[in-house]
């Protein structure tokens, strides 16, 4: 402690996704991990009226200097972690800048207007180059598809957290993850979540 462990202060991270993907849990697990390492973390959650299906985002301000506004100012995100790919594109318009990084899941969740045929959802092949053009670095990971192979799509959020750790953007320690996740989940679920976390790290290294 004492030395700066952040590349920027405050480090502005947004975790975004669709209600039901475990967005809020991901932000709270990460926040607790960082606070245990002596950092100050401010989180602002935005979720709509519906519990499922709406755009959700958690603004995280990570700092050595105390708490910040729970809403990140426009154009000031350092990293966007997207559990759903179109949500990354949506947020770049409000919080992006030429140095922002994006770490995104690849599997879409279709909005109702797309299902109804009133709007188009782009293919992932269209999304990837647009995101790359607007960021300094972008990683895409099939987290939900791999989570399904592990038995449950919900592991997607933990896979993404593991991948975030592997980017080296933040001081995230696997041992601290183990401690924190044990406070959130019952014991029978810990092994699978640790596996998901470690698997996310491996997936990032392969991109």
């Amino acid at each position, binding site marked *: 402690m004492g030395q700066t462990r952040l590349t920027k202060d405050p480090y502005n991270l947004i975790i975004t996704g*669709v209600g*039901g993907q475990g967005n809020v849990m991901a932000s709270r697990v990460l*926040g*607790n991990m960082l*606070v245990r390492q002596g950092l*100050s*973390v*401010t*989180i*602002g*959650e*935005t*979720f*709509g*009226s*519906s*519990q*499922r*299906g*709406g*755009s959700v985002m958690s603004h995280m301000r990570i700092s050595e200097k*105390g*708490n*910040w*506004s*729970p*809403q*990140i*100012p*426009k*154009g*000031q995100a350092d990293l966007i972690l997207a559990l759903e790919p*179109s*949500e990354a*594109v*949506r947020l*770049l*318009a409000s919080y*992006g*800048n030429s140095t922002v990084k994006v770490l995104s899941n690849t599997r879409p*969740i*279709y*909005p*109702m*207007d*797309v*299902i*109804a*045929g009133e*709007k*188009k*959802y*782009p293919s992932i092949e269209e*999304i990837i180059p*647009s995101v790359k*053009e*607007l960021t300094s670095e972008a990683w895409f990971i099939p987290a939900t598809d791999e989570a*399904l192979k592990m038995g449950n*799509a919900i592991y997607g959020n933990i896979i993404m957290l593991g991948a975030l750790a592997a980017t080296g953007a933040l001081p995230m320690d696997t041992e601290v993850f183990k401690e924190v996740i044990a*406070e959130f989940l019952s014991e029978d679920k810990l092994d699978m979540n640790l596996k998901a976390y470690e698997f996310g790290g491996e997936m990032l290294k392969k991109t």
Partner: protein
Amino acid sequence: MATLMDGKEGMEYMAMGNEAFARGALEAGVQVAAGYPGTPSSEIIEQLSRAAKQAGIYVEWSVNEKLALEVAAAASFAELRALAVMKQNGVNVASDFLLHLATSGTRGGMVLIACEDPGALSSVNEGDARAFAKLVEIPLLEPGDFQEAKDMTKWAFELSEQIRNLVMVRSVTRMSHASGNIRFGPLPKVSTKAEYKYSGSPLDPNTGMIAAGGFRHRFVLDKLKKAVALFEESPFNTYQGPEKPALLIITSSACYLYAREAARILDVEDRVGILKLGTTWPLPPNLLKKHMASADNILVVEEVAPFMEENVKVLAAEMAGEIGIKNFYGKKSEHIPSVGELNPDIVLSALADILDLGYESMPAEYAKKTGAFATTKAPARALTFCPGCPHRASFWSIHNALELDARKGFVCGDIGCYTMAAGPTGFNTIKTVHSMGSGTGVASGFAKLRQFGMEQPIVAVCGDSTFFHSGIPALVNAVHHKADLTMIVLDNSGTAMTGFQSHPGLTVNAMHDEVPALDIAEICRSMGARVEVRDPFNLPETQAALNELLEYREGAKVLILRQACALSPQRKSGQKFKMHVDENLCLGEDCGCGRLCTRIFRCPGLIWDEAKGVSRIDEVICVGCGVCADICPQQAIKREVA
């Protein structure tokens, strides 16, 4: 840390604002806490209920907010420290008792935490409960960060005991539902014995709790005066900035964090002073005088109503002879919007405009590109019921029954997730929405317009928790006046929208004790209403019941549609059906159904496969309720018992 009682003194913890409020109450030695669920307030009582047994306190989810305030007041009358918690709209419900409580005064420290929702992110409106503090003449506190949320709650109990009246603490979504570091203080050992003492005259402010007599108004005002004197010295009012700022910002609550950040980004901290007020009603005049005297230009930053702005202007007018004439900026000058929640960017623009600075949050070219991508590659997500939500099935049947009936019947809506049935996810079935319980109340009025020629069938919907909250008096009114309406109780087994808090229809309370459940059907029958109960997932039976009830014109009828919320613990534990679409049977665009399944029914778990031109189950999203199998005219959607 299993509960907030486990947090040791001195420990640093990332707390949600609502956890900080709850911990503050525990550090104050609160003994009774009562509330009614409502976003963004619910986690305060939830946290206290989790800690209740360990702390030896009593916590309840009351039937409504007025009862919560009454239950807490009784504890205060018996010399215990007591807390009532509700969302802003709940203060409206509690306001009748609130006025009288302020008049009688309190004994044990009593605090009301009102959590507001600027921008109505999860509410039907963005109300402002601060006006109630002024109206009923009690002190108002607003924390400006998470540590203050805890410390100020603790102090609010002390203040309440000093002035012997209720203290209101106001939070907002960005305080209650945001999280930040806090440091825990000590937890006291409390063992106050409850006793309601009534020796002496009931009219004596020190011995009587009778809120009657105009003379009592004098006591209320004296208490407020005492609070103002304490506010002058309060450490919750802080100032940072130069001695003579070019611009003085007066702010409070989460807006303080926005103002501080805006000043930093613009690099004007040496020219702009920020007076952050924690004690926002009544304003401490000497403190305000000192700071207003130092600046010619004053910007008031706050959310929803221009509450502080107007109160500050009154003081400035009274003091004009001493402090001079000021230029005021805020909502009146339109530098701060009067609608919607604030953020750092709004404050930034206001500052840049007043100080005549240029600021570009995003280079124009980057903004243009990202804006274009977002428009074409990030389709908006409309409000929708969850996959497997019983409300989608219920409104499918209600909508169809009203269409078949063809007398232009309509639904009076109420407050819950089902309010969204005013939009496409509920087939635009709901046509009026106001406050809790008002659906059935308004319906009972419509149903008495038969003598003026109204022939439309009148339907009201309300949730199970709303039924107990305020639906019962409305139904009593309808039955007694032979109002020909159909009240549909959408019983999903809990206060679902806010996170499954208990209500009187359930066998477990907030303390996790077993309690007697009240049967909604029996209550309605005992009133004399005709009552039917169906499972909304059974579309044919639900529609048959509705058709029959719409025909039956002899007074009030109740249809209870009982099916647990898709997110309830009992349904989340397993899928009932494994669903799939038989691609050979689905005729796609050629069917003639007009893509009833995906274009109209709109469940997020049933998607359209554009490449194949057929509908398809999204196995990640579908929860296997099986309802869509009944809407497909081709029987192409198949359910197998999972």
